[in-house]
């Protein structure tokens, strides 16, 4: 925000013959600036999932730039073979034990790399690779996820461990 000197209520009008430099008078500055507005096309921001109320506004009237926002936190990119297995799960086709183990193994590794989780931390992750909760101990993690509904199954894993601890439907 530009630094400006605000005039007192009594001194709204300058005395005759007194020249106010344009940089200390917001009104003058506003008059000098062009009234052009930057209009965004839908294609410009649709990829970033900007919230409607937080769209970037450039206006000489407000001088306001709102913050960027996302509808949801970013999730890791999943390899095609992982996506294929998830699609199979969505179609309620049973996965073999080997497929399920490799799926959870892949998801756990992708999540830990994406979110940069330290080894030894306990995490609860969704099947789309998003970590919903993390804690230092298993009991602490169970207390955090206890009673919460994530809408999808979550699995519990100790980062760096070769086997996962369990899952919750």
């Amino acid at each position, binding site marked *: 925000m530009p630094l400006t000197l605000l005039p007192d209520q009594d001194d709204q009008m300058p005395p005759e013959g007194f020249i106010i430099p344009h940089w200390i008078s917001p009104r003058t500055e506003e008059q000098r600036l062009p009234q052009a507005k930057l209009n965004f096309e839908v294609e410009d921001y649709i990829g970033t999932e900007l919230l409607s109320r937080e769209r970037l506004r450039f206006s000489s009237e407000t001088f306001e730039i709102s913050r960027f926002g996302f509808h949801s936190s970013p999730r890791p990119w999943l390899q095609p073979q992982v996506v294929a297995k998830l699609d199979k799960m969505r179609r309620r086709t049973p996965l073999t034990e080997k497929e399920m183990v490799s799926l959870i193994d892949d998801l756990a590794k992708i999540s830990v790399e994406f979110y940069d989780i330290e080894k030894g931390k306990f995490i609860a992750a969704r099947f789309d690779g998003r970590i919903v909760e993390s804690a230092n101990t*298993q009991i602490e993690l169970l207390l*955090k996820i206890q009673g919460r509904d994530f809408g999808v199954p979550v699995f519990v894993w100790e980062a760096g461990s070769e086997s996962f601890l369990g899952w919750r439907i």
Partner: protein
Amino acid sequence: MTQKPEKVKICKNYRKKAAYITIEGTIPNPQTAAQVPLRFECRIDTGFDGGVLVPVRYKSDTQSIGVRPTITNMTLADGQKINVYVCAAYLQAIEKCVFESPGKPILLVMCGLREGQFLGMDALKYCTILFDGPKQNFTIDI
């Protein structure tokens, strides 16, 4: 300045050639503050690394307060792997010794149909137990 709680010493005799103690606790739902009270006599099992092992029928009690237990597997003494349900619970009292609210967090393991509860090392870490096999008694220091 907080006052240090007094140490409690409990001496008990073996029953049916095993050590049994009475515990109290709760299964909490931190989201709704609902809880299921637990009170039973447990057999001390130093070979079990969980907190408390209870029959699988407790699963319906946890579900009644909106807690869905996590499915995991456990290895039995004979090497057999079985699926069990686990959730977090609070251990609030061992015999007459009451812990500060909400209690000590422990792992509650639900498996098997046979009645009987076991107290494992995850719960026993909060106290010191001295077993005297020839005299058939044990002492708990909390």
